[in-house]
């Protein structure tokens, strides 16, 4: 165990530096600020704020970016409670009881409990990350290209099964993302692929261009079409500190939610998204009086919020140890790391221990800051919630334009983002989800690279996937998951999990 404490100490020595501490604070604050705006989820927030981190050194930039990430998560919960608009899938659950509490004049208690639950979950999740990072990295270093390939296939399949909506459509989106990732010059042979003779896209399409197009711009187009009924709470916010009784009711849900979220977040395919739903249904089943749920039960806020935050943080584990992003936000993190010439994966821990442990220590500090800065600022958030969308979206457009231009100082990128905005809009109309597309796009290049390496090592023999036991196990699991997911019984249960 001494190694564990050495690592943590190293992390805090980095994270507590004046510069990194202020970047962490700034990230949390700005992340919350943008995340609170209704209709702006974490993915949009991060893609919008990405350019803020281009200038700095890698450690500071990633610390700030991580701060933006939990800030956006936290801001999303605030909006869910006060306006009944979930910023993303995972805060849907918080709207159920959180908004009811707000209508009863207990918004303060709901916000306070959400913050406390998130902080507790964040603390535990940080410890889980710190504890699992070293062994998982050692495990990841054993991975051969064939195993990596299989792991990515498994992760993508899990992401499909755990997402909502049609499985066939989600698989199609992943494949489309993979296909898009092959656009440009082939890295091995130098052949142009799918460029249709257009030299400007020889280097391939930047991930941020795709992300901001299909998430940022397409979201704006959707919001413009269906004017939201904004239901900002007019009642008093009430006292922020929950009562002793509310604490007693919430303690066990928080602990259970944290465990659930921390475990599900570890899965390579966005398990975290399930955590709040699972936590909510467990608490409802365990409750003495289930009918209170949906009418302002504080457990319905505390449990899912803890699960959400724990999962959001342990989702860093697949990214930091294996280099595999489990969800769209982590895919953006990969992009941000690439901008700073960092390759996510086991090498981060072995070659850049300062960066790794500094980031982990800053996660905990960020959670602490959110607890301290957010509750006193509730009044400000309420005022922000009243900013009309007609002013918000032009600002988002400008921020995105500046951000994309600054990636490569290339106007063509800006133009391409508009094209992907249109693509995203069409996808929404056809009921395709954008998240699997982005995941496929980010993993596509790595997937092909590992496949080619594996086949080169085995001299073209497919049996290499049989010989590598890790790879074989994971591919078998992928097949099983696909079969189980296709069974009619599972399909029904899946729908009820998400609609509960």
């Amino acid at each position, binding site marked *: 165990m001494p190694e564990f404490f050495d690592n943590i100490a190293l992390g805090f020595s980095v994270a507590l530096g004046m510069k990194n501490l202020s970047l962490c604070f700034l990230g949390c604050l700005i992340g919350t600020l943008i995340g609170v705006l209704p209709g702006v989820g974490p993915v949009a927030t991060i893609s919008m704020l990405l350019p803020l981190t281009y200038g700095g050194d890698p450690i500071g930039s990633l610390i700030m970016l991580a701060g933006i990430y939990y800030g956006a998560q936290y801001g999303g919960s605030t909006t869910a409670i006060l306006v009944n608009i979930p910023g993303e899938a995972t805060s849907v659950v918080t709207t159920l009881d959180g908004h009811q509490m707000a209508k009863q004049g207990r918004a303060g208690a709901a916000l306070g409990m959400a913050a406390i639950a998130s902080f507790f979950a964040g603390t535990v999740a940080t410890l889980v990350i710190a504890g699992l990072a070293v062994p998982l990295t050692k495990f990841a270093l054993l991975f051969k290209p064939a195993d990596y390939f299989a792991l990515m296939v498994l992760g993508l399949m899990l992401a499909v099964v755990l997402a909502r909506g049609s499985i066939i459509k989600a698989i199609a989106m992943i494949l489309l993302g993979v296909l898009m990732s092959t656009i440009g010059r082939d890295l091995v*042979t130098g052949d142009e692929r799918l460029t249709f003779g257009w030299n400007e896209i020889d280097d391939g399409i930047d991930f941020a261009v795709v992300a901001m197009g299909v998430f940022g711009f397409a979201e704006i187009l959707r919001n413009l*079409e269906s004017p939201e009924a904004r239901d900002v709470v007019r009642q008093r916010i009430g006292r922020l500190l929950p009562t002793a009784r509310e604490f007693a009711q919430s303690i066990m849900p928080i602990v259970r939610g944290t465990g659930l979220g921390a475990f599900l977040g570890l899965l390579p395919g966005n398990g975290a998204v399930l955590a709040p739903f699972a936590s909510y249904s467990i608490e409802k089943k365990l409750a003495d009086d289930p009918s209170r749920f949906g009418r302002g039960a504080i457990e319905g806020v505390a449990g899912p919020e803890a699960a959400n935050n724990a999962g959001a943080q342990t989702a860093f584990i697949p990214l930091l140890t294996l280099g595999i992003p489990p969800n769209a936000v982590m895919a953006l993190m990969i992009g941000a790391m690439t901008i700073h010439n960092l390759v996510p994966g086991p090498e981060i821990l072995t070659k850049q221990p300062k960066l790794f442990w500094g980031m982990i220590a800053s996660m905990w500090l960020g959670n602490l800051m959110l607890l301290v800065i957010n509750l006193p600022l509730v009044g400000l958030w309420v005022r922000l919630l009243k900013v009309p969308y007609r002013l918000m979206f*032009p600002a988002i457009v400008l921020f995105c334009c500046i951000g994309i231009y600054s990636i490569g100082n290339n106007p063509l990128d*800006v133009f391409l983002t508009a094209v992907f905005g249109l693509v995203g809009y069409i996808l929404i109309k056809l009921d395709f989800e954008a998240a699997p597309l982005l995941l496929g796009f980010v993993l596509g290049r790595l997937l092909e690279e590992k496949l080619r390496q594996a086949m080169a090592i085995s001299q*073209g023999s497919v049996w290499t996937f049989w010989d590598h036991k890790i790879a074989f196990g994971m591919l078998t699991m992928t097949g099983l998951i696909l079969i189980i997911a296709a069974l009619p019984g599972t399909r029904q249960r899946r729908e009820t999990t998400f609609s509960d």
Partner: protein
Amino acid sequence: MATDGPDAPRTARIPRDVVAGMVLLLIAIGAWFGLRDLPAFDKSAIGPGLLPKTVATLIGALGLMILALGLGAGRERLERFSFRGPLFVLGAVGLFAVTIRPLGLVVAGPLAVAFSAFGDRNSRPFEVVVFAIVLSALCILLFKYILRLPIPLAPFYLGY
């Protein structure tokens, strides 16, 4: 695809998933066309064509499946597309792309904000103009002077 008028039908006649399947099929065919000269195998190793061609084939197959399932009874119809939002919002982004190099952020910023604002039918012209100028000024301060991004400011006047 219906027009934007208030009396236009909310949905088109075609089932949504039939269109979705057809779109995937078209993508698959287009990809095959673009990949036609790339070999799937290169001596004993994998060639540049294998993965994209396989993926394109799978996309086509899934497209057919979605199309077939969409033909079933009681399926959701295709929602109508609106033109106002995409035209102004994406048009604003295009305007930014065209103007940023020659005219700089001083012009491209307010232009993008003002043009995109008309994507909302409730936009108010005076408010939009004021907001576009204030927001651009803030962005110039933040991105140019605080974060020092190398984005052109006013090349025609300042030279950068």
